């Protein structure tokens, strides 16, 4: 199922292009004149030392920050400003560094919340609940259960997410993003704070999502091993400026990248 709006892009074609984008907060330049593209069906990593502007870049793509200069072209449509609500409608979903789950709700409700855009039964039917509204709930519950199976979080369905350990919270958050059936999935440090086993699980999930659902993935990650293994192409930012762009091997050997990191590998 594809999200509404925009042209249908073939696999390998440019799904999203960032052109000469700049963003500053007061005097602080978060992103300076950055351009790169994201091809449909690939896994693209954005890496760089702390403060490089990676999260800001993600926030720009999904409409949370509006850049002062530059444009974004998504599925053939160019715009300079977009609200997060519109980004969601067009098929962009994301997760956050600090896990932005709805703490008052259970895992199941959080993921069901991700289906909101696709639930259409209006207020009248919601007041009655039996009939079309219930049928819609059940229909979406099926899809959500597929995601729960996929992420192996059946046991914690009914647990309020505030009580879950960090690793599981990240999985539920991924589930909520997947529930939107996005064309473009933005993951902000999905492996942060995980041990080796959890990282392997998460890597498997990301690969499966890309493989199985055909979702294009953009991820910010610090673990170089993960980046090299998972991604098709890599963009490197440093102090808000793009310093390299290519396949993992190309980037690995790039002197500017090595200098930026001072040779740090996880």
């Amino acid at each position: 199922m594809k999200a509404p709006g925009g042209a249908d892009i073939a696999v390998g074609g440019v799904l999203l292009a960032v052109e000469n984008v700049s963003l500053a907060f007061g005097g602080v330049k978060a992103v300076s004149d950055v351009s790169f593209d994201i091809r449909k069906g690939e896994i693209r990593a954005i890496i760089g030392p702390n403060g490089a502007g990676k999260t800001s870049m993600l926030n720009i793509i999904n409409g949370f920050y509006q850049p002062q200069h530059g444009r974004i072209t998504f599925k053939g449509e160019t715009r300079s400003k977009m609200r997060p609500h519109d980004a969601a409608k067009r098929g962009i979903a994301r997760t956050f560094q600090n896990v932005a789950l709805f703490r008052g709700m259970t895992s199941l409700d959080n993921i069901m919340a991700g289906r909101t855009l696709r639930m259409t039964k209006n207020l009248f039917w919601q007041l009655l609940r039996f009939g079309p509204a219930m049928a819609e709930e059940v229909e979406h519950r099926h899809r959500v259960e597929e995601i729960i199976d996929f992420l192996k979080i059946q046991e914690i369905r009914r647990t309020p997410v505030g009580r879950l350990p960090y690793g599981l919270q990240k999985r539920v958050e991924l589930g909520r993003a997947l529930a939107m059936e996005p064309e473009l999935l933005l993951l902000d440090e999905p492996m942060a704070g995980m041990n080796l086993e959890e990282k392997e699980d998460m890597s498997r999930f990301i690969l499966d999502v890309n493989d199985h659902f055909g979702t294009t993935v953009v991820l910010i990650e610090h673990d170089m091993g993960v980046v090299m293994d998972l991604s098709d192409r890599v963009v490197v930012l440093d102090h808000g400026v793009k310093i390299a762009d290519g396949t993992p091997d190309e980037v690995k050997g790039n002197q500017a990248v090595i200098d930026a990191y001072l040779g740090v590998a996880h």
Partner: protein
Amino acid sequence: MFYREAGQFKTTYQADQAVFPILQDRIGLALILIAAFVGMPLLASDFFLSVVMIPLLILALASIGLNILTGYTGLLSLGTGGFMGVGAFACYKLTTIFPGVNIIVWVLASGFFSTALGILFGLPSLRIKGFYLTVATLAAQFFLDWSFIRVQWLTNYNTSGAIEVPTRTLFSFPITGPNASPQVRYLVILAVVTLLTWFASNLVHGRIGRMWMAVRDMDLAAELIGIPLYRTKLLAFAISSYYCGVAGALLVFFWYGGAEPGVFNIDQSFTILFMVIIGGLGSLTGSFFGAALIYGLPIMLKGAFHALGWNILPSTVEHITFMTVGALIIIVLIVEPLGLARLWQIIKQKLRVWPFPY
């Protein structure tokens, strides 16, 4: 050993999504409804119905309204009294202009006037959040309170500024006014409150409830999964005000029998808010618990003093009530911010394993 889920398997998602999935809960609910609709009118005294049940149901309805706005959507409102008043006065005007139409129809219709004002005062929520929005609701409260006295058209130009409820009938039984019996009034209120509670329950357990709670818990994330923040907040204002408006109309027509200026003042707003906090923010059953506790407190205190043989002035009881409520609010927020509803859940958990300790 009586209250357990063992052996109750759900084979469809529909059954799993039910509001009361546990059989014992469903039986309990059925028993409560039978007791309420049949037992009470037959067995309870006039005093009990007039002084306990009728107020309890009406205040619980208002609490449900405020809970939708504050408990589920996270928008703290101090305008409840004002919105209740809008419903009450709308009902009064409607029935005095069109006395032939059934009063229950007007009660249900008057809620929509509250809704209109609720949306109007909710418009600022596009740009203002948190404390600021609370102050905006305070503006609504003071403005509405002032209008109820100033706009004499509302009270049909009554010199004292008060309204007296005219007699209205249903199937030729008087249901409002001095001749209406407590049993009849109680049943009408019970029917309306049950219906509206059912609607509220349906809403909060479905898509709309999730949208509200998402806005409450983290509105930035809610926006990013496609929830339209502004429309969701306005819907909360709209529905919340409707419930408060109907509660206000019921209060004047079926409980007080009239209204004096100041009935819908800021104290009323705080009373309902305290019911919501103590009962449990974000819980419908909590609204009932909270209403019972806050409304019942002065009655229980008077009873306790009486039993101890102390002769306490009514004003002193009022002061002690204020102190107790204030202290209770602080205690509830410290010990169990989710209020009596959560306490009830914990009791049910313990019941699940009873008679074993764990």
